[in-house]
């Protein structure tokens, strides 16, 4: 029992820090779940950079949640397609489980209190006006 207990204590101490959105709490967050192997994710990055730049002065931020199992893959992706917004690395998939991600990419808009206001699956360049409208609606509230 003692061995088990000490193992549990050691495990909990050595466990890596959980990915969290706490540092962005109080802002409207556009949470974007992405991975290096997901082709539409790559297509969405220029637009994500653009909206982050456009609305960041209005208490808004894009947060990219990377779901690659290996960090190197994410870094490779980012060297060819830089992200100008904050990133969270979640190889264990805690955040997608919490926000019930149904496909990749997946986007969730959270209000200042962290409540889910809008969500959509995939990224379609033809629908960016629709996504932008959803952001503006949350920002107006």
């Amino acid at each position, binding site marked *: 029992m003692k061995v088990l207990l000490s193992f549990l204590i050691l495990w909990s101490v050595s466990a890596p820090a959980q990915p969290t959105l706490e540092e962005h709490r109080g802002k409207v967050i556009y949470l974007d*779940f992405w991975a290096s*192997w997901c082709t*539409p994710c790559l297509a969405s990055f220029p637009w994500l950079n653009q909206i982050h730049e456009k609305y960041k002065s209005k208490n808004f931020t894009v947060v990219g949640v990377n779901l690659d199992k290996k960090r190197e893959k994410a870094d490779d992706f980012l060297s060819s397609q830089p992200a100008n917004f904050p990133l969270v690395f979640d190889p264990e*998939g805690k955040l997608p489980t919490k926000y019930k*991600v149904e496909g990749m990419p997946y986007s969730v808009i959270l209000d200042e209190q962290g409540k889910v206001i809008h969500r959509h699956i995939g*990224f379609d360049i033809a629908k960016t006006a629709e996504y932008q409208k959803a952001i503006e609606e949350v920002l107006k509230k």
Partner: protein
Amino acid sequence: MKWLLFILMLNLVGCAGWGVNPWDRDLMAQKSMQFGAESVDEAYTDHIYFSKEGSSGGSGFSGGGCGCN
């Protein structure tokens, strides 16, 4: 004995968590995991299959399951 029974019962539910989460498709989304080498050719065959059979899929995929690529 109770423990043994518990472990046996646990084995019975071992497959209850089957299925791959969209964010776990990492390896399966890789090119080397596709049946065919030529993705355009695969897509063409799949399209014909879809129009003839009214069903699609089952031949691998490269996307994340959002249905948009």
